């Protein structure tokens, strides 16, 4: 297996220093020297503008594309005029004499004001904010309930959460990840409800990420999750502030990302992926019914095709008498064995889905009709796939789309394949083997130290498999180890314990 090993004598790569850890570089009294240093550090980028003020004794340096000219006018030039050109009298400013600090401030969208003969320079925050309007997330629509969603601006996202939890114990810890990108992430939790051990663990894991760039929430979760090779997602991702807040109040931690509307929530159990904010807005009986359907769809999504293949390939004795003629009629003239049929049909559905996602919505729906109706009908008439298999695979993919979480739905569709193969070579025994493996794996996966398939006690059933009315849900989920196990003051004594 030597080709898997890395080459040993690779040339050592130069270490990059993060902007906030740059050693200080003292500025000089010479304006020209200072400007030259900054220009060199920024590799003479063309968007670096140096604006010399009349008399060439003072200069304003900034990065053209990320600063707002309006703000510059308002915060620098107007006050400067009022103070008769004396920069030191403007109140809203920062002072510094470290040129490396000046460079990193420039990158953050600040403007640097320098004066000839003075080693101190002044920083003004004139960053241009580019944000998208708050919209309902496309992939997590609800019928009732709030319709706002996170967007790419982390400040706005925190704003949405803070507005929902107006309490001093809502804690926000910002960190940056990525030596080049310096992406900002924020850990959000409610002190006093969250298990402090879990917060500590998450902070250590985040600190240990070593990478040039942090590009997405998905990549981030791969750095810190417990089992990267698992097929199941270990972080619940959402773009909905209401969902985030309800998870925060249960004692979980939310991770927000700059320039990314996705919010990751941990630690979660398997059942969290089957809860939707809709559940808490409808009558509890309706919500329970829908939850049960979702959980049933989990079983359906992974076992239905394999069950069908096992029945027609191995155990036709179990077909009920009344179904013999319909089944026989449907599969008699099909050219291929059931496994080929199944894989063909699964691939067709995946193709339709994948092509539908990328295309603009008017064409996307056309693809759905062409794919679903025309191919579905023609493939049966042509005798490539039996109409029963079309029903089975269509039901399976419908069942996988029922899951409120997108990642879980993808995992389920992948999971169908090994079971199809096992059932086509070993029949029901193969399905039993496969499901056993899945179950063993689910029991071993952990999400931030919390066992993924934490056995549900009778008490926890209230908000997992079913949903009971709010007044019956007095406790937070016990497996989270929250220091405040009850959801209301009336139930606990002063220490929050009973």
């Amino acid at each position, binding site marked *: 297996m030597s080709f898997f090993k890395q080459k040993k004598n690779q040339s050592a790569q130069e270490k990059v220093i993060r902007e906030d850890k740059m050693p200080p570089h003292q500025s000089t009294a010479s304006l020209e020297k200072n400007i030259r240093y900054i220009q060199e550090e920024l590799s003479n980028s063309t968007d670096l503008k140096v604006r010399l003020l009349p008399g060439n004794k003072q200069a304003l340096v900034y990065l053209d594309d990320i600063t707002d000219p309006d703000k510059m006018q308002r915060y620098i030039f107007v006050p400067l005029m009022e103070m008769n050109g004396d920069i030191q009298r403007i109140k809203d400013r920062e002072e510094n004499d470290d040129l490396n600090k000046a460079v990193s401030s420039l990158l953050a969208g600040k403007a640097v004001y320098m004066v000839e003969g003075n080693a101190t320079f002044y920083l003004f925050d004139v960053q241009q904010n580019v944000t998208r309007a708050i919209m309902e997330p496309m992939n997590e629509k609800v019928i009732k309930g709030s319709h706002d969603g996170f967007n790419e601006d982390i400040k706005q996202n925190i704003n949405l959460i803070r507005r929902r939890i107006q309490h001093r114990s809502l804690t926000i810890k910002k960190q940056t990840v990525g030596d080049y990108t310096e992406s900002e992430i924020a850990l959000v939790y409610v002190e006093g409800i969250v298990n402090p051990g879990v917060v500590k663990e998450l902070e250590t894991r985040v600190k240990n990420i070593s990478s040039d760039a942090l590009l997405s929430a998905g990549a981030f979760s791969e750095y810190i999750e417990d089992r990267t090779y698992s097929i199941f997602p270990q972080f619940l991702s959402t773009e909905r502030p209401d969902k985030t807040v309800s998870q925060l109040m249960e004692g979980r931690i939310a991770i927000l990302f700059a320039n990314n509307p996705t919010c990751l929530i941990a630690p979660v159990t398997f059942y969290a992926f089957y809860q939707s904010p809709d559940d808490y807005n409808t009558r509890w009986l309706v919500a329970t019914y829908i939850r049960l359907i979702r959980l049933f769809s989990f079983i359906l999504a992974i076992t239905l095709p394999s069950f069908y293949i096992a029945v027609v390939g191995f155990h036709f004795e179990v077909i009920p008498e009344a179904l*013999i003629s319909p089944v026989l009629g449907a599969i008699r003239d099909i050219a291929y064995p059931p496994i080929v049929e199944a894989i063909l049909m699964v691939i067709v559905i995946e193709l339709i889905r994948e092509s539908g996602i990328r295309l603009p919505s008017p064409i996307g729906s056309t693809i759905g009709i062409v794919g679903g109706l025309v191919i579905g009908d023609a493939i049966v*008439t042509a005798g490539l796939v039996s109409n029963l298999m079309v029903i089975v695979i269509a039901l399976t993919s419908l069942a996988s789309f029922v899951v409120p979480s997108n990642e879980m739905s993808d995992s389920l569709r992948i999971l169908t394949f090994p079971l199809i193969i096992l059932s086509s070579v070993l029949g029901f025994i193969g399905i039993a083997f496969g499901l056993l493996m899945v179950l063993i794996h689910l029991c071993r996966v952990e999400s931030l130290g919390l066992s993924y398939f934490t056995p549900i006690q009778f008490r926890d059933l209230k908000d997992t498999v079913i949903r009971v009315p709010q007044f019956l849900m007095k406790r937070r989920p016990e497996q989270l180890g929250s220091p405040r196990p009850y959801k209301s003051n009336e139930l606990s004594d002063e220490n929050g314990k009973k």
Partner: protein
Amino acid sequence: MKKLSIILLSCTLILSGCWDTREFKEVKLGITAAYDMTEDGVYTNTILIPNVQNSAQGPGQESTQFLTAIGNTPTEARTNIDRRLSSTYSPAQLDVLLFGSNLAKQDIYPYVDAYYRDPRMHLDVVPAVVKGSAEQALKVVPKSEMRPSEYIEGIVDSEVETTNSLETSLQAIGSELYEEGEDFVLPLLQVGDSGKTVSFEGLALFHDSSYTGKDISFDHTTLFVLMKKQKGKVARITAKIFDGKKPEPDNYTTINIEDFSSKIKSKPDKQNKVRTDITLDLTVMIQEYPQDHLALADLPEVKKKLEQALTDQANETLRTIQDANSDVFGIGRNINGHYPSYWKKLDWEKDFKEIKIVPHITVNIRSRGIFR
């Protein structure tokens, strides 16, 4: 090395699995099978195989295929059938097993033995006896039926629903085939209308594993089934309760049994060796009373006459059973269980004919119908 062995192990597991595939579409399923005995003492096996043509609007018209083969054992006959089929023959979905009366009179066990041994066989196959040739009954395919393969099964099932036949299957008669002290009945069919239909003729009485040649006739079956503590969805009995009235239908009434309870008690008896009391309480509704008016005051008389008529009918049935030496009520088994030492002294083969079985039938008329 470790990885290689894991790959090899999983390959052996998966690839050996492929070998066991039995694809549904490559199998011909027999729905009904018939066993007959020829004059030379060789038996023939006839099966009915449905073939469905697929059409755009779901499964289309069913066509049927009959195959007959001769063999020394049932499995040999099956192998001979297989030789003439394009794909493998499987009896796993068999619904009905028909025995010609000649064959049934000898012994049916050799023909059902294979069904008990193979785990892939359905044990809810309904065995039935055909007066005359079973093959002939199997080949009756009425044109009006949507699924000709289900014709005979439908006949037997519907008789169970109207309390004319006991619910039976290979599973149900399994222990009674050989055990002493309990026998069984099977539905009796006959080809009628010069070969166009098959009709239910009553219940064939068995002793051990062979047909006794005696039957419970169709008009006595409902009462018999009720005494056996079974009731389908509907149970109707027509009884003659008057004599000499004109027109003729006025002599009869039809009752609909709404509720019933049945008890069978057996105990040793000095005079008759064993005495069995069958208590049957019926709660009925008068379904048909052609004399027109049924006054409340007439009810006690009707009740008395009904009880008399039903008791006569029961006595007749019991006499047939004892003549046939077919202990369908399991009286022997009951005595064996409760009085084991006494049972050892009995010779049930002979004594069953001698024992006394007394029916006690009471009728409670709950309703006279909405029209009086």
